[in-house]
Protein backbone atom coordinates (compact mmCIF):
# COMPACT_ATOMS: atom_id res chain seq x y z
CA UNK A 1 0.00 0.00 0.00
CA UNK A 2 1.09 3.50 -0.70
CA UNK A 3 2.77 5.41 2.08
CA UNK A 4 3.92 9.01 2.11
CA UNK A 5 7.05 9.59 4.14
CA UNK A 6 8.50 12.99 4.89
CA UNK A 7 12.00 12.93 6.40
CA UNK A 8 14.67 15.59 5.80
CA UNK A 9 17.29 14.21 3.41
CA UNK A 10 20.05 16.14 5.18
CA UNK A 11 20.56 17.25 8.77
CA UNK A 12 23.31 18.41 11.10
CA UNK A 13 24.35 16.02 13.84
CA UNK A 14 22.25 16.66 16.92
CA UNK A 15 19.41 18.39 15.10
CA UNK A 16 15.89 17.53 16.18
CA UNK A 17 14.04 16.50 13.02
CA UNK A 18 10.39 15.92 12.35
CA UNK A 19 9.24 12.72 10.67
CA UNK A 20 5.82 12.65 9.07
CA UNK A 21 4.12 9.55 7.74
CA UNK A 22 0.82 8.89 6.05
CA UNK A 23 -0.37 5.52 4.85
CA UNK A 24 -3.53 4.54 3.06
CA UNK A 25 -5.85 2.35 5.10
CA UNK A 26 -9.61 2.35 5.61
CA UNK A 27 -9.38 2.06 9.43
CA UNK A 28 -12.85 0.49 9.60
CA UNK A 29 -13.92 1.02 13.19
CA UNK A 30 -16.00 -2.10 13.73
CA UNK A 31 -18.80 0.06 15.13
CA UNK A 32 -20.53 0.94 11.88
CA UNK A 33 -23.59 -0.83 10.51
CA UNK A 34 -24.82 -1.31 6.95
CA UNK A 35 -28.27 -0.13 5.89
CA UNK A 36 -29.40 -3.70 6.63
CA UNK A 37 -28.19 -3.43 10.21
CA UNK A 38 -25.21 -5.80 9.94
CA UNK A 39 -22.09 -4.76 11.84
CA UNK A 40 -19.13 -4.05 9.54
CA UNK A 41 -16.15 -6.01 10.89
CA UNK A 42 -13.23 -4.06 12.34
CA UNK A 43 -10.21 -3.60 10.08
CA UNK A 44 -7.62 -1.22 11.49
CA UNK A 45 -3.88 -0.75 11.79
CA UNK A 46 -3.00 -1.57 15.40
CA UNK A 47 0.74 -0.85 15.60
CA UNK A 48 3.16 1.54 13.96
CA UNK A 49 6.90 1.31 14.50
CA UNK A 50 9.81 3.45 13.31
CA UNK A 51 13.40 2.18 13.44
CA UNK A 52 16.52 4.29 12.86
CA UNK A 53 19.41 2.12 11.71
CA UNK A 54 17.76 -0.84 13.38
CA UNK A 55 16.93 0.82 16.71
CA UNK A 56 13.31 1.51 17.56
CA UNK A 57 12.85 5.25 18.04
CA UNK A 58 9.06 5.56 18.01
CA UNK A 59 6.12 3.23 18.39
CA UNK A 60 2.37 3.78 18.53
CA UNK A 61 -0.65 1.63 19.40
CA UNK A 62 -3.58 2.72 17.28
CA UNK A 63 -7.28 2.32 18.01
CA UNK A 64 -10.41 2.77 15.87
CA UNK A 65 -10.46 6.44 16.93
CA UNK A 66 -7.50 7.10 14.61
CA UNK A 67 -8.84 8.55 11.35
CA UNK A 68 -8.70 6.69 8.04
CA UNK A 69 -5.33 6.88 6.26
CA UNK A 70 -3.40 7.23 9.53
CA UNK A 71 -1.17 10.29 9.72
CA UNK A 72 1.58 10.39 12.33
CA UNK A 73 4.19 12.99 13.01
CA UNK A 74 6.93 12.69 15.63
CA UNK A 75 10.49 13.84 16.30
CA UNK A 76 13.94 12.35 16.65
CA UNK A 77 17.54 13.51 17.02
CA UNK A 78 19.65 13.13 13.86
CA UNK A 79 22.59 11.04 15.09
CA UNK A 80 24.11 9.38 12.05
CA UNK A 81 23.53 8.87 8.36
CA UNK A 82 21.38 5.90 7.60
CA UNK A 83 17.92 4.59 7.13
CA UNK A 84 14.55 4.99 8.76
CA UNK A 85 12.30 1.97 8.47
CA UNK A 86 8.57 2.22 9.03
CA UNK A 87 6.21 -0.65 9.69
CA UNK A 88 2.43 -0.74 9.98
CA UNK A 89 0.76 -3.87 11.37
CA UNK A 90 -2.97 -4.41 11.63
CA UNK A 91 -6.02 -6.64 11.63
CA UNK A 92 -6.40 -9.57 9.22
CA UNK A 93 -2.64 -10.01 8.95
CA UNK A 94 -2.12 -6.53 7.49
CA UNK A 95 1.51 -5.50 7.21
CA UNK A 96 3.18 -2.72 5.27
CA UNK A 97 6.64 -1.19 5.28
CA UNK A 98 8.44 1.86 3.94
CA UNK A 99 11.85 3.44 4.37
CA UNK A 100 13.68 6.73 3.97
CA UNK A 101 17.34 7.74 4.05
CA UNK A 102 19.07 10.63 5.75
CA UNK A 103 22.55 12.11 5.46
CA UNK A 104 23.88 13.50 8.74
CA UNK A 105 26.88 15.82 8.60
Amino acid sequence: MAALINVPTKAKRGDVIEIRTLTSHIMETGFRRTMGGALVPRDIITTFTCRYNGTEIFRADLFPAIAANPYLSFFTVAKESGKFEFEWIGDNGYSSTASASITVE
Partner: protein
Amino acid sequence: MPTTRRQFLGIAGGITVAGTIPIVTLRPLEATPAMLNTAIRNVVGEAQLRIGKVKIDIPPLVENGNTVPMTVSVASPMTADDYVKSIHVFNEKNPQPNIGNFYLNPSSGRAQISTRIRLADTQKVVAIARLSDDSFWQVATEVVVTLAACTEEVN
Protein backbone atom coordinates in the same frame (compact mmCIF):
# COMPACT_ATOMS: atom_id res chain seq x y z
CA MET B 1 -44.16 37.52 16.89
CA PRO B 2 -41.79 36.49 14.08
CA THR B 3 -38.34 35.36 15.15
CA THR B 4 -35.67 37.90 14.28
CA ARG B 5 -32.37 36.87 12.81
CA ARG B 6 -30.66 37.93 16.02
CA GLN B 7 -32.93 35.77 18.15
CA PHE B 8 -32.49 32.80 15.85
CA LEU B 9 -28.70 33.05 15.90
CA GLY B 10 -28.78 33.42 19.65
CA ILE B 11 -30.79 30.25 20.05
CA ALA B 12 -28.69 28.35 17.49
CA GLY B 13 -25.52 29.45 19.25
CA GLY B 14 -26.91 28.32 22.58
CA ILE B 15 -27.69 24.88 21.22
CA THR B 16 -24.23 24.50 19.74
CA VAL B 17 -22.56 25.51 22.96
CA ALA B 18 -24.69 23.09 24.95
CA GLY B 19 -23.81 20.38 22.43
CA THR B 20 -27.32 19.07 22.22
CA ILE B 21 -27.77 18.82 18.45
CA PRO B 22 -29.20 15.30 18.12
CA ILE B 23 -27.09 14.13 15.18
CA VAL B 24 -26.33 10.61 16.37
CA THR B 25 -29.42 8.53 16.84
CA LEU B 26 -27.96 5.06 16.45
CA ARG B 27 -25.07 4.55 18.81
CA PRO B 28 -24.63 0.95 19.92
CA LEU B 29 -21.89 1.65 22.43
CA GLU B 30 -20.18 4.65 23.86
CA ALA B 31 -17.33 5.18 26.22
CA THR B 32 -19.00 6.45 29.33
CA PRO B 33 -16.97 8.49 31.80
CA ALA B 34 -16.71 5.23 33.79
CA MET B 35 -15.10 3.49 30.80
CA LEU B 36 -12.82 6.48 30.35
CA ASN B 37 -11.71 6.21 33.96
CA THR B 38 -11.12 2.46 33.64
CA ALA B 39 -9.05 2.97 30.47
CA ILE B 40 -6.98 5.64 32.22
CA ARG B 41 -6.46 3.45 35.28
CA ASN B 42 -5.32 0.60 33.02
CA VAL B 43 -2.43 2.81 31.94
CA VAL B 44 -1.75 4.79 35.10
CA GLY B 45 -2.50 2.14 37.72
CA GLU B 46 -2.66 3.57 41.21
CA ALA B 47 -0.22 6.38 40.44
CA GLN B 48 -1.25 9.95 41.10
CA LEU B 49 -2.35 11.98 38.08
CA ARG B 50 -1.09 15.53 38.11
CA ILE B 51 -2.39 18.43 36.06
CA GLY B 52 0.07 20.22 33.80
CA LYS B 53 3.06 19.81 31.47
CA VAL B 54 0.86 18.33 28.72
CA LYS B 55 -0.79 20.36 25.98
CA ILE B 56 -3.40 19.30 23.41
CA ASP B 57 -3.77 21.33 20.22
CA ILE B 58 -7.13 20.47 18.72
CA PRO B 59 -9.81 22.66 17.14
CA PRO B 60 -12.40 23.58 19.81
CA LEU B 61 -15.19 23.17 17.28
CA VAL B 62 -15.02 20.67 14.42
CA GLU B 63 -17.53 20.27 11.64
CA ASN B 64 -16.57 16.74 10.71
CA GLY B 65 -15.61 14.29 13.44
CA ASN B 66 -14.07 11.90 10.91
CA THR B 67 -10.72 13.70 10.67
CA VAL B 68 -9.82 15.95 13.55
CA PRO B 69 -6.18 17.09 13.56
CA MET B 70 -4.60 16.75 16.99
CA THR B 71 -1.15 17.55 18.36
CA VAL B 72 -0.06 16.60 21.86
CA SER B 73 3.11 18.08 23.29
CA VAL B 74 4.78 17.75 26.68
CA ALA B 75 7.09 20.24 28.35
CA SER B 76 10.20 18.12 28.86
CA PRO B 77 13.95 18.64 28.32
CA MET B 78 14.10 15.15 26.71
CA THR B 79 17.50 14.31 28.22
CA ALA B 80 18.68 10.85 29.27
CA ASP B 81 17.63 11.59 32.86
CA ASP B 82 14.40 13.44 32.26
CA TYR B 83 12.27 12.49 29.30
CA VAL B 84 8.77 11.45 28.28
CA LYS B 85 8.29 7.69 28.07
CA SER B 86 4.82 7.67 26.59
CA ILE B 87 1.79 9.75 25.67
CA HIS B 88 -1.70 8.24 25.95
CA VAL B 89 -4.79 9.86 24.48
CA PHE B 90 -8.36 9.04 25.52
CA ASN B 91 -11.87 10.22 24.73
CA GLU B 92 -15.08 10.26 26.67
CA LYS B 93 -17.85 9.31 24.25
CA ASN B 94 -16.54 7.35 21.27
CA PRO B 95 -17.59 3.68 21.26
CA GLN B 96 -14.17 2.94 22.77
CA PRO B 97 -12.25 5.15 25.22
CA ASN B 98 -8.75 4.73 23.72
CA ILE B 99 -7.40 6.84 20.89
CA GLY B 100 -3.71 5.98 20.83
CA ASN B 101 -0.58 5.20 22.85
CA PHE B 102 2.69 6.75 21.67
CA TYR B 103 6.08 5.59 22.98
CA LEU B 104 9.02 7.99 23.03
CA ASN B 105 12.58 7.92 24.38
CA PRO B 106 15.41 10.38 25.11
CA SER B 107 16.48 10.38 21.46
CA SER B 108 13.06 11.68 20.44
CA GLY B 109 14.45 15.16 21.04
CA ARG B 110 11.04 16.74 21.35
CA ALA B 111 8.01 15.30 23.14
CA GLN B 112 5.40 16.01 20.52
CA ILE B 113 3.18 13.86 18.32
CA SER B 114 0.50 14.71 15.77
CA THR B 115 -2.19 12.60 14.20
CA ARG B 116 -5.77 12.79 12.97
CA ILE B 117 -8.53 11.31 15.07
CA ARG B 118 -12.25 10.49 14.99
CA LEU B 119 -14.71 11.94 17.44
CA ALA B 120 -18.22 10.53 17.65
CA ASP B 121 -19.73 13.33 19.66
CA THR B 122 -19.10 16.55 21.49
CA GLN B 123 -16.86 15.38 24.28
CA LYS B 124 -13.73 15.59 26.38
CA VAL B 125 -10.32 14.50 25.06
CA VAL B 126 -7.72 13.58 27.66
CA ALA B 127 -3.96 13.29 27.11
CA ILE B 128 -1.67 11.73 29.71
CA ALA B 129 2.13 11.71 29.65
CA ARG B 130 4.30 9.26 31.54
CA LEU B 131 7.69 10.74 32.38
CA SER B 132 10.93 8.86 32.98
CA ASP B 133 10.44 9.15 36.77
CA ASP B 134 7.09 7.36 36.29
CA SER B 135 5.04 10.40 37.21
CA PHE B 136 1.86 10.98 35.20
CA TRP B 137 0.65 14.34 33.95
CA GLN B 138 -2.63 15.03 32.26
CA VAL B 139 -4.67 17.63 30.44
CA ALA B 140 -8.27 17.52 29.25
CA THR B 141 -9.97 19.61 26.60
CA GLU B 142 -13.53 19.87 25.36
CA VAL B 143 -14.27 19.51 21.63
CA VAL B 144 -17.62 20.40 20.08
CA VAL B 145 -18.42 18.09 17.14
CA THR B 146 -21.27 18.89 14.76
CA LEU B 147 -21.00 15.85 12.46
CA ALA B 148 -20.24 12.63 14.28
CA ALA B 149 -17.83 9.91 13.17
CA CYS B 150 -17.49 6.19 13.83
CA THR B 151 -21.09 5.13 13.96
CA GLU B 152 -22.61 6.47 10.75
CA GLU B 153 -24.24 3.97 8.41
CA VAL B 154 -22.24 2.48 5.57
CA ASN B 155 -23.71 3.44 2.23
